């Protein structure tokens, strides 16, 4: 089915002299939650704005269900999006805010009440949005995205400013939307936020694609062959392991990180040379660490001047 996927192809966008997106290509598949990750300023919001036809690309294209967004007659029935939850007229009531959106796309007022119910805002429907908390605004924005019951959904930083309960609610919502066969794209600058909800990851940095992979593959790759070793004879251990062909890095006075050797092989070598050790463990990377590895070079505002702590 082509109807419910997002295809971004060779996308380029610059603002003045700043290149925001530089030849980005990826596809968002239906039936799963795709995390869209990158540091602040990596080009996530720009990409989403181009997908929604808000900004015009300088090169390449972004298609939703095979069409440019601007060519969609009733776009909210095809794509739902949450960009900026605060983008509501403070003097307008929540229900009225959704009503005009519905009218633009020929949706009924009944549907407005349904989504208000779905996001838990039925009580506040007739209150002016100016008095809403951040969490309520976020729910209102999500209601707007769900309004047209679209097969494709985009959420830009949906958990920003939510309390833990709200975060759990969003995760559940994202999973259930994907389970219904929809394509769901969720952006975040913190990988940790996506742990447990995303199936697939598109990682970008400085406007370029860094990784387009499943969460599982990424974790495996990141933790692949690193082994943590704790020993009281650091120098001896390092000499032996390097001679055996491993890559070794000292991380503490009694700790060493080894790669290129399996834990079994390391234990064998240490025993052969009578070297003491208190711990040998295969390293399991967290999603956050995997992400940091990937984006280390792409972080634009890294604090180069500050020496990294040992």
């Amino acid at each position: 089915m082509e109807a419910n996927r997002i295809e971004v192809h060779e996308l380029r966008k610059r603002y003045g002299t700043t290149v925001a997106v530089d030849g980005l290509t990826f596809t968002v598949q239906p039936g799963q939650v795709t995390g869209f990750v990158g540091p602040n300023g990596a080009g996530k919001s720009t990409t989403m704005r181009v997908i929604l036809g808000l900004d015009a690309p300088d090169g390449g294209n972004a298609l939703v269900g095979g069409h440019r967004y601007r060519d969609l007659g009733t776009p909210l029935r095809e794509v739902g999006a949450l960009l900026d939850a605060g983008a509501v007229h403070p003097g307008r009531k929540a229900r009225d805010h959704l009503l005009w959106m519905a009218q633009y796309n020929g949706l009924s007022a009944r549907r407005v009440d349904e989504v208000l119910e779905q996001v838990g805002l039925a009580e506040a429907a007739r209150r002016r949005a100016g008095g809403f908390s951040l969490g309520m605004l976020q729910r209102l924005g999500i209601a707007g995205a769900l309004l047209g019951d679209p097969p494709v959904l985009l959420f830009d930083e949906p958990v920003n400013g939510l309390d833990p309960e709200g975060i759990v609610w969003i995760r559940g919502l994202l999973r259930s939307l994907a389970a219904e066969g929809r394509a769901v794209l969720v952006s975040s600058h913190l990988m940790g936020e996506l742990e447990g909800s995303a199936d697939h990851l598109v990682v970008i940095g400085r406007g370029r694609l860094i990784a387009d992979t499943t969460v599982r593959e990424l974790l495996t790759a990141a933790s692949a062959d690193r082994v943590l070793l704790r020993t009281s004879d650091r120098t001896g251990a390092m000499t032996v392991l390097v001679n055996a062909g491993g890559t070794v890095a000292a991380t503490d006075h009694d700790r060493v990180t080894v790669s290129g050797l399996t834990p079994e092989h390391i234990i064998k070598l240490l025993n052969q040379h009578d070297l003491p050790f208190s711990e040998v463990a295969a390293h399991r990377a967290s999603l956050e660490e995997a992400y940091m590895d990937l984006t280390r070079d792409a972080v634009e505002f890294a604090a180069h001047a500050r020496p990294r702590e040992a």
Partner: protein
Amino acid sequence: MSPPLIGRALRAEWTKLRTVRSTGWALLALAALTVALGALVTWDLTPPRCGRSDPSCDFDLTRLSLAGVYLGQAAVVVLAVLAITTEYEAGMIRTTLAACPRRLTVLAAKALALALVVLGTAAVGVLGSLVVGRQILAANGFSTAAGYQPLSLADGATLRAYGGTVLYLGLVALLGLGIGFVIRHTGGTVTVVLLLLYITPVVAMAVTDPRWKEWIEQVSPMTAGLSIQATMRLDGLPIAPWPGLGVLALYAAGATAAGAILFRFRDA
């Protein structure tokens, strides 16, 4: 089966206008200010003492009764500007464009909804100031016995002044909306539009050369546009009624076109 896009867009933009309180206040201010200032102008007006044969003697009673639009138009400007700039200031314009990516349709629907609301209110408010003016003037001695016809829409010139004034307010709304699309900030837009409208009388005060003065009055949106209100001494006007309204229409068209082009090609 949904209605065609422009119909849906118009309905949505109407909902937007309807559901913020500022719209009601602005429209109320439009009608109230127009009627109130008109009444104030005619309040202490008495028939002139000069000879009725002197062509420069008689008051243009229709025009004086309709003088309230000088003030009423400020409310129209605020309404028109807010209709677009609040969307930009809240970031809501992105929501709008996500709901309807055809930008020119959005602009057309917004302009149409705004124009309808303004024209409707103006039709009532301007008629109100004619009715109030008619009552006050009759009480002040402009009676049939003294040779004055009561203000009536049956009179061709008065009808033109009435209809033209309503159109004038509609065009002012489009002018404000167009410039709003260009500038996108409320404070800046309101200042610029009010300046554009009210600048001429101030500039004309500074200019003492009559030829310059006339030229300025011919090309300025307010002075030229409001010449549509004249019902007598048309030869003495800097610009004739309909061409004068045409000048304002050009301003409104220019502003709307500029707004449309920028809206179409600029990133939201």
